[in-house]
């Protein structure tokens, strides 16, 4: 097992102490970056092969380059800290335990893409993360890591922190922009993409917390080092959120070559005695189920794809054999019905009808044709919804049906 990188400081330093952060490599990457040209920094991120850790796995360097090439000013850097995917809590752990890392990464990003203003959009229910971040930003500003002429350079950059207000959909990047702009958090039709028209209609770099947390390490140790960790398609360390029926639920750092079994039985201590794995919900409510037989699958995107499961945000929810799985599906369906923003019809109506049908199935009182209804809703939401929320809202339920994890009651 490799020593943790992203979690290196978490739990070992005082998250409110700049001195602690500096003593543990803090802000050295920024000093290095300010001596290079912005293009070199973008090149470094590209060469690292880093892919977005929010769930979409988009190549981070490609995004950085696209924003860097935009001639329009101003540009923005946005940190998506609206972590709300069920079973996901890695970003909170980073923000609470190592808030300066995100600040440093954002300044580096701003320098690389030519932005002078950054926003951190923190989930409304993450009170401690918000407090720690606010403190980190003001302390960093006093120390000259933020503001005008950072560390005596020509580069100026500052960060504003915004609180979310209870809407999962605001984790979708364009909905997040709408929210910062003071509107209902409803996703925009893409294109245009944020790199061209993002926050306030301006070119915007938006990255997830964990993605940004990788940046200082890439700068310090180099893209080649980063690529040695993980798999060719998914380099670098990854945080996994193991929850549910395990002895030690928590955030674990591992390369994606780790298998589900190693993660669950090794790192998270396995299930309490007498309990067996019934199913594992991987990737959050928007994810899909893995069966106990699939536990030797590595968590690489390719291997997971072969079993029809997305890596997503890195949520690994372990469900033991005592739990009625329909109750789990009810919660997944309720979640999407509750969190649909209501903008596009497939999701606005589909998530609600899906919930109603899953409730009927969970009660053992389906109507004739309910499974076909579910499948039609699932296909329509996936094909025709505006954003990822609707496009993935049926995945978990469909995967449970397709893998035979639940039996479908026969209509009366």
């Amino acid at each position, binding site marked *: 097992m490799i020593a943790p990188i992203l979690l290196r400081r978490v739990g070992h330093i005082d998250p409110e102490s700049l001195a602690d952060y500096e003593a543990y490599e803090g802000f050295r990457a920024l000093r290095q970056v300010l001596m290079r040209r912005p293009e070199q920094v973008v090149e470094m991120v590209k060469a690292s092969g880093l892919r977005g850790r929010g769930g979409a796995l988009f190549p981070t360097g490609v995004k950085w380059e696209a924003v860097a090439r935009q001639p329009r000013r101003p540009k923005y850097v946005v940190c998506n800290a609206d972590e709300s995917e*069920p079973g996901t*809590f890695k970003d909170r752990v980073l923000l609470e335990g190592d808030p300066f890392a995100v600040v440093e990464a954002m300044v580096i990003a701003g320098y690389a893409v030519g932005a002078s203003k950054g926003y951190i959009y923190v989930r409304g*229910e993450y009170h401690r993360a918000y407090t720690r971040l606010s403190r980190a930003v003001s302390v960093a500003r006093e120390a000259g890591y933020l503001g005008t002429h950072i560390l005596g350079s020509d580069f100026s950059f500052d960060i504003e922190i915004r609180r979310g207000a209870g809407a999962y959909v605001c984790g979708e990047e364009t909905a997040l922009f709408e929210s910062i702009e003071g509107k209902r958090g409803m996703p925009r039709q893409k294109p245009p993409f944020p790199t061209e028209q993002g926050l306030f209609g301006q070119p915007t770099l938006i990255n997830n917390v964990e993605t940004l947390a990788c940046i200082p390490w890439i700068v310090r140790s180099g893209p080649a080092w980063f690529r040695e960790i993980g798999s060719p398609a998914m380099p670098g360390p990854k945080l996994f959120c193991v929850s*549910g029926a395990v002895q030690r639920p928590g955030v674990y750092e591992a390369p994606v070559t780790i298998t589900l079994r190693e993660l669950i039985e090794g790192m998270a201590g396995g299930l309490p005695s007498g309990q067996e794995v019934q199913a594992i919900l991987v990737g959050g409510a928007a994810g899909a189920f893995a069966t106990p037989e699939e536990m030797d699958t590595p968590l690489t995107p390719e291997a997971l794809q072969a079993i029809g499961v997305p890596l997503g945000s890195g949520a690994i929810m372990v*469900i033991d054999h005592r739990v009625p799985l329909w109750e789990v599906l009810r*919660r997944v369906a309720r979640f999407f019905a509750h969190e649909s923003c209501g903008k596009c019809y497939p999701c606005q109506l589909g998530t609600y009808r899906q919930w109603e049908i899953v409730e009927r199935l969970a009660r053992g009182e389906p109507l004739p044709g309910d499974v076909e209804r579910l499948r039609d809703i699932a296909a329509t939401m996936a094909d025709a919804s505006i954003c990822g929320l609707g496009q993935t809202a049926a995945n978990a339920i469909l995967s449970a049906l397709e893998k035979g994890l639940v039996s479908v009651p026969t209509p009366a």
Partner: protein
Amino acid sequence: MHSPQPERWQQVDEIIQRWATHGRSGLLPCLLEVQDITGYLSPELCAHIARHLRVPEADVYGLISFYSLLYDRPVGRVVLRVCDDVPCYVRGSSELLNALQEALGLEPNKTTADGAITLEVHPCLGRCERAPFVLINDDEIGPARAEDVLARVQAHLQSAPSTLSERAEDPAATEEGTG
């Protein structure tokens, strides 16, 4: 009518004036910060905020009704958010929720008759390593047992200052225009 807590209304006005320069982009943080003091966002308060931030009143209302942490009517001084999503459910949130409902005599998303406690069933709160998890205002309890939660609720009821909305009228009703 004179407000019994003028210094807190002053806080509200300071928040509004600070965000007024941001215009519409200041709306969400302004509403959140004001609500931290007032407990909820009354029509009068919203009209006041709308005027100072130059945002249509209808849009202010549209925003409040979209975000689940914003309230357009009074909620309990203590808001109990019980996570009942998948990881918490696997670790007993249903039993916890039932016990809390019974002890408080509350259905989910309802407030006690005295306006003290609101019970909400919440989507995943992102503290799955501490499941089953409960937020009492911004106080975190997990893994939560019903008796611990109830004891903490009592402590909050005794220590938490009552929100402005329980005592006073809204600023727009008492002082016209601040900016």
